[in-house]
């Protein structure tokens, strides 16, 4: 009798859990396949690594991908009459997903670099960024100060590249994390002495974690970077559409509105 009761309880629990899980399954979590042809309008599947607030992150309430990048692409899509669907794609596999056609284009605070241009095409720039050094006491201000320090970066990002190029590939003190928040977390608990990452993300993080009292610095030597939309190499048709859209939102002030919403003086 007793075992029967606990069995019942267990199965009820399990069923309940499944039901709840199904109930709050995020709509955006559906695995994105090839672009779906709905009716006669092509739906473009946009890959984004939604762990990079304020550019792209998952909204805790709606479970949708939101952010500066998302708003920009939505505005472009509206101007061009395109249908877009955002699919959260981890950075690790994001370029592979573009190459094998799982994603039509990418918006993910992607810096336009010559190295990347070899394997994909970029739209015109839509954002200017620079690297930022974060530390607990503000003592580290320049690239030179990084020597001999343990440095946290996000794996494969520009911050990673700049620090690796400067200190050499064999420098043991570079710790590469999955996401910028994880690298900043590692800075807080002392795994690393400094973190280096894109200004947009860092400013947002520091603003939201005032209690940690993190200090930021920009080395004027850091090159300016530009974010672009990444398209599979040779897909000029889509590239032209996106560039046209970027031009239009710049001309009619839509871009400025979005920019001020995220990075404007408050």
């Amino acid at each position: 009798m007793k075992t029967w009761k606990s069995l019942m309880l267990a199965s009820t629990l399990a069923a309940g859990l499944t039901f709840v899980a199904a109930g709050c399954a995020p709509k955006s979590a559906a695995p994105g396949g090839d672009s779906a042809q709905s009716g006669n309008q092509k739906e473009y599947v946009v890959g984004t690594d939604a762990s990079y607030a304020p550019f792209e992150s998952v909204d805790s309430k709606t479970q949708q991908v939101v952010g500066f990048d998302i708003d920009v692409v939505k505005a472009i899509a509206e101007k061009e009459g395109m249908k877009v669907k955002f699919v959260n794609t981890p950075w690790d596999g994001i370029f592979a997903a573009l190459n094998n056609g799982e994603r039509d284009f990418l918006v993910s605070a992607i810096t336009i670099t010559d190295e990347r241009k070899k394997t994909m095409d970029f739209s015109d720039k839509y954002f200017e960024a620079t690297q930022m050094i974060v530390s607990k006491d503000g003592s580290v201000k320049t690239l030179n100060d990084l020597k001999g320090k343990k440095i946290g970066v996000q794996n494969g990002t520009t911050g990673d590249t700049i620090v690796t190029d400067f200190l050499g590939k064999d420098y043991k003190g570079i710790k590469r994390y999955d996401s910028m928040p994880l690298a900043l977390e590692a800075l807080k608990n002392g795994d690393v002495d400094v973190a280096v990452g894109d200004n947009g993300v860092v400013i947002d993080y520091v603003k939201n974690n005032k209690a940690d009292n993190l200090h930021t610095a920009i080395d004027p030597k850091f090159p300016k970077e530009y974010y672009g939309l990444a398209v599979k190499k040779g897909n000029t048709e889509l590239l032209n559409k996106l560039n046209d859209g970027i031009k239009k939102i710049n001309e009619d002030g839509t871009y400025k509105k979005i920019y001020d919403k995220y990075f404007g003086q408050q």
Partner: protein
Amino acid sequence: MTFRWDAIQEYMPFFISGAYYTIEYTVICIILATLLGLFLGLGRLSKNPFIQGFVKMYVSFFRGTPLLVQILLFHFAVLPAFFGGKSPGAFISGIVAVTLNYAAYSSEVFRAGIQSIDRGQWEAARSLGMTQSQMMRYVVLPQAFRRMLPPLGNEAIALLKDTSLLAVIAGGELTYNARAMAGSTLLVWEPYITLAVFYYILTFLLARVVAFLERRFGTA
């Protein structure tokens, strides 16, 4: 699609240092997890309800949550709480998380192994006037250990592969280095194929060690 051997060559030092760390994690964790697992297994068979209850809870926690979650939890929350808000470093966190997790699994192997020894053996030992701990040491554990070798060998190989999860806390092992290569070169085939080959070689070698131990000490 060209396969870039030159990139693999260029990043070979990354893989070598990763392999070194993977072996280090594996050896240290197998030794610690086996010892801790033995004590937990004995505790699970203890007549003291508190000890038994504690082991039951311990095993149920570590078997009921993913190792990846445990690694993140220990590295970013639990251990810093013990070290005054500072992390002891990914190496220590990694060893602690993997050891505690695998101790839970191997404790069940020890429990089952000890319970599988025939009652007659206990009675025979008692009639020789042995104490409880003498029975364990001279009669039960040596026999149980033989039976436990194959499942413990499986655990060891699973542990080796699970050290790859330490990549998320920048553990410096094979997977972390392969991903660093993938991140900076934007290649996918080259780093991950090389990674698979490295793991295969390591698990193959470990399996040989386990097979040797089984031949040497196992049930004939």
